[in-house]
């Protein structure tokens, strides 16, 4: 294991910025992704703060209606395409997945680097759209508005189109890696659950993302040469666009949540020092979610004018996704039973996830019910729902995972105290912002509203103030994490007592991951073996 080799870690060997930009090492690519993803999150968060500020009062404060529309479009598009979809798989996944498998690298390192640069390339288009008259269509790009507005829709969709390929290639790479690169003795049921989750995610990435690509391409062509299929003026069908869009974008929400669930499984075992409860059901439920996710996209179209038959089918199937999610939640809970719970920062985020994801999930069930969705669709209730699952679910798990693997990635420890403080602010601030929005939505406040009725002001103002608490939490986090990079005490190889293979190499790992190729002869969380 971590015997002192002089060659240093992957961070310093080889040296020089060129060796970073052209690296084929999955760990470095993961770190570069991480950097871009954090920047995207901060940018998206900045837009969120700005748009919330505008909502402080029912009338105009700073922005015009058009600017406001551009703000939430940019916020949504950046958060979804640049941040949350690649967030966990491409950064943390890239870094730890091969380590967890005991592999030297992903199956196609060159492809991995290519998908990173494709990501950067796509991001450039999105940024270009921002400065050239940002799109104002909402992140859903519904036709015919998106084909007729005069803002720079093309560069934004082109950016998302390119980002899609980055996501697809990551998926292809991960599937091949998981199939072919496992260490000796690691059969499917000895894989850590995070790997299972990434596998399920990769399935969705490969199957769903091409449909987004073609949809956005059709939108671009519609604006340039005209294709006609979404254009009502010549007999096209704008609702067909929604089918196309959601065929990707619903599964995409599980691209966002599945890796997060994977992280949850890792956190709960390590910090309870205990075997996971129901390994196989958790593993299978990831795959089940991935498959069912393709059958429910129409729940975004309940009031769009789709046929009642379609609405009925989609509603039934929507509830089915709740079941595997339920299994996971209860299994994590049971894992805590009889454990030895180590209340470190990552575990605080585990707890936050449990609380917030349940709220998000339950409201998802409400939205899946036909008559209720007719009422809630297009209101702040939906906005609150998806922030609870995306921010309260995925982002919490992402931050939890970031703290969990931080020592492994950078070889430095951070301040537990400030970690807990930041988590507190984020948790409280988050609920201030978004719980209010459930009430707003239930009272009928529509989303994407620049101005609103005076009566909604108290709640909106409270929500806006929550964003400042939330922002403060992130600011604290930024400070102590950066501080840890500079002043943090060196991290041991296995600071949390984790069982999976990434903890069996030094922190930070050597360039080739393991000095001795690992051989696996036990289950991934078999604490009983060492604790008796």
């Amino acid at each position, binding site marked *: 294991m971590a015997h002192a080799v002089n060659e240093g870690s992957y961070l310093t060997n080889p040296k020089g910025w060129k060796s970073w930009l052209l690296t084929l090492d999955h760990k470095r690519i993961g770190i570069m992704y991480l950097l871009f993803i954090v920047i995207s999150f901060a940018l998206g968060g900045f837009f969120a703060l700005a748009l919330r500020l505008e909502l402080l009062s029912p009338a105009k404060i700073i922005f015009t209606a058009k600017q406001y529309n551009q703000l939430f479009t940019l916020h949504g598009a950046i958060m979804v395409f640049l941040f949350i979809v690649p967030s966990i798989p491409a950064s943390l996944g890239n870094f730890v997945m091969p380590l967890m498998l005991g*592999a030297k*690298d992903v199956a196609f390192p060159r492809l991995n680097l290519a998908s990173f640069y494709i990501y950067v390339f796509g991001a450039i288009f999105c940024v270009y759209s921002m400065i050239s008259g940002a799109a104002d269509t909402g992140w859903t790009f519904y036709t015919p508005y998106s084909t007729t507005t005069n803002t720079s829709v093309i560069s934004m969709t082109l950016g998302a189109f390119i980002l899609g390929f980055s996501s697809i290639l990551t998926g292809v790479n991960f599937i091949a890696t998981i199939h072919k690169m496992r260490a000796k003795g690691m059969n499917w049921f000895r894989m850590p659950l995070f790997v299972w989750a990434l596998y399920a995610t990769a399935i969705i990435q490969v*199957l769903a993302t091409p449909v987004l690509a073609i949809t956005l391409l*059709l939108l671009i*062509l519609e604006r340039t*040469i005209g294709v006609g*299929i979404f254009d009502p003026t010549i*007999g096209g069908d704008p609702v067909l666009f929604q089918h*196309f869009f959601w065929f990707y974008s619903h599964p995409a929400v599980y691209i966002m949540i599945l890796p997060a669930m994977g992280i949850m499984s890792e956190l709960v075992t390590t910090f309870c020092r205990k075997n996971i409860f129901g390994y196989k059901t958790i593993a299978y439920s990831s795959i089940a979610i991935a498959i069912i996710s393709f059958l429910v996209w129409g729940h975004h179209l309940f009031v769009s004018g789709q046929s009642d038959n379609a609405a009925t089918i989609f509603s039934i199937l929507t509830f089915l996704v709740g079941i595997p999610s339920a299994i996971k939640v209860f299994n994590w809970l049971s894992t805590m039973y009889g454990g030895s719970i180590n209340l470190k920062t990552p575990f605080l985020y585990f707890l936050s996830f449990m609380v917030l994801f349940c709220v998000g999930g339950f409201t998802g069930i409400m939205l899946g019910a036909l008559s209720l969705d007719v009422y809630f669709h297009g209101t702040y209730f939906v906005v609150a729902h998806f922030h609870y699952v995306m921010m309260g679910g995925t982002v919490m798990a992402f931050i939890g995972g970031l703290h969990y693997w931080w020592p492994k990635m950078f070889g430095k420890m951070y301040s537990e105290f400030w970690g807990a403080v930041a988590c507190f602010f984020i948790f409280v601030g988050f609920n201030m912002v978004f719980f209010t929005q459930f009430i707003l939505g239930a009272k009928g406040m529509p989303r994407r509203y620049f101005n609103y009725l005076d009566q909604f002001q108290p709640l909106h103002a409270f929500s806006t103030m929550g964003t400042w608490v939330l922002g403060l939490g992130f600011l604290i986090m930024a400070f102590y994490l950066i501080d840890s990079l500079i002043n943090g005490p060196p991290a041991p190889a296995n600071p949390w007592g984790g069982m999976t293979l990434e903890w069996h190499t030094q922190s930070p790992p050597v360039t080739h991951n393991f000095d001795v190729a690992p051989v696996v002869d036990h289950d991934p969380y078999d604490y009983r073996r060492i604790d008796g």
Partner: protein
Amino acid sequence: MSKQKESLVQHHVAHHFDTAEQEFSTAKLGMWVFLVQELLFFGALFVAFFVFKYLYPEMYVEAHHHLSWKMGALNTIFLITSSFTMVMGVRSAQTNQRRATKNYLFATMLLACSFLVVKYFEYAAKFHHGLLPPHFFFGEGVHQTLPIFFGLYFVMTGLHGIHVLIGIGLIAWLMYRNSRGEFNSEFYTPVEMVGLYWHFVDLVWIFLFPLFYLVG
């Protein structure tokens, strides 16, 4: 490496693989998964095709009379033949017949180019008659919704055409590597992969041809 004509370039297994076998089967699996992606990429367009066929059946009937089935059939034959030469190319690489590999690859490329030439004439005819995507459409037709058909036609055959073009590039790259003697019975992964890709392009056309040209 010496640049002598007959020298063989030895392939080294990449560092993160244990065996050449593992490397090969991983590449192949990756390729198949990539094709799955391609399938859904084109698949979405087929969904659109069927939706509008369902909504405007008579318009489709009218529209397909504007397409020349003879050209389509000719192109089908080109592509099928090229699939055959491709598979033979892979086989000769497997059996160390470098010369045959070169010839087969060349034949494949030639057929692919012929496909594009025929396509060029077809497109030219459409341009001439104004049977174009909606924004440029100035053709004559009974049905108002006709431009939609040509929107779809150009997008679907256009994307397919781009795939053919990429295929030509890939085959050229194979020929270059083959000329350096990189392929042999121990290592022919790239040939096999491009082969898979090429057959997939053929596969798409196998559906495009009857749907656009034969049944309206």
